[in-house]
């Protein structure tokens, strides 16, 4: 079947199988930041934005994305750059496999709630699993970024 969507601002038309997952589709189109983790809707590694809303691409059919705008980290570099350095500064991650999904969901969080509390950050990122760290480093990184932003605004 044929589908059309916008992937990272670029309009694409493609022939796919009816059961092609959005995860495989975006990876086949060069978006290798999107990772296959659990594939059982538990880990958040496959997070993409569908019309700006974070969803699990491992459990979404590419066919459903027809007519919609899909964004991956490849298309959101500038927005991510603002805060990823703060997470790195905390030595928050080890293997880094969880990082793209984590960054995607943090982008969604900060768009929805630019000044989250620590509990709001934890709640929003609860669906992003990291098997190397204890999540504290990521939380410290986001907090450091938010504090820096607040200081800049003064």
């Amino acid at each position: 079947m044929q589908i059309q969507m916008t992937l990272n601002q670029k309009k694409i038309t493609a022939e796919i199988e009816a059961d092609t997952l959005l995860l495989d589709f975006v990876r086949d189109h060069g978006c290798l930041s999107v990772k296959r983790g659990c594939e059982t809707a538990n880990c958040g590694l496959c997070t993409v934005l569908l019309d700006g809303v974070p969803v699990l691409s491992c459990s979404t059919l590419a066919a459903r994305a027809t007519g919609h705008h899909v964004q991956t980290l490849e298309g959101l570099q500038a927005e991510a750059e603002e805060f990823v350095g703060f997470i790195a500064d905390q030595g928050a991650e080890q293997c880094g496999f969880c990082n793209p999904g984590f960054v995607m969901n943090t982008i969604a969080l900060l768009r929805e709630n630019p000044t989250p509390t620590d509990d709001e950050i934890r709640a929003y990122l609860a669906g992003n699993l990291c098997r190397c760290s204890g999540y504290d480093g990521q939380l410290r990184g986001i907090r450091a970024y938010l504090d820096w932003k607040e200081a800049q605004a003064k």
Partner: protein
Amino acid sequence: MLTINQYVRAESLEQAYELCQKKRNVVLGGMLWLKMQHRNVETAIDLCDLGLDQITETSDSYTIGAMVSLRTLEQHAGLAALTQGAFAEALSHIVGVQFRNTATVGGSLFGRFGFSDVLTLFVVLDAKIELYHHGMLSIAEFCALPRNTRDILVQVHVPKTQKRVVYLSQRNSATDFPVLTCAVALQDGNCQCAIGARPLAAVTFTDETGILQNGITPESAAAFAQNIAQKAEFGKDIRAGVEYRKRVCAVLVRRALLQAKEG
């Protein structure tokens, strides 16, 4: 593994209904549960173009379309006010934000899952389930339908009845399936209590023997909770055994009642 031969975006409920009469065709909600199954699907029927992703309000009820995401439900201001935040409490522990953006109300209810937080809450709200072919059913009638019922869940109606509602659940670890779910609704001195994730589907209890007739106190709440823990049927699974669930039930019901009374 789930394989799908053909994908159809239904153009009408009638078309979706006709298609879903075939045994090898399935209706897609968020596909999260379907995806976990080993199944060869002939035609996947997508309802996403039928405008069922809206929550609308009339003077006496809220109507929730089958394709509304659990996240939308969790964040809806009107439903939050009606239930004093019970929707957010029931839904916010389900996996994560991305998951709840993907999962739908229709799929969550049609599955009538034993572990369901969603079903447990809707039960005490006296929700009505609108199926395309079977029409409007009480949630109890809907739950009693045979598992192999082939119909389309179109929308859910929640009456704007003034109630005190409290939802509580117990999980072994954050974002896991619940070990027990509990929803309590108080209305005009009457109490309705639903217990789910037993691990069987949610069942409701009322105060048949008048334990709460002189009001909710720490003692009467504890007695009512013990009574339900004795009456409810529990099972065991990898998360918990019968005795543990019974004990958790007594604690959750007591806490929920006291919280509901405090308002």
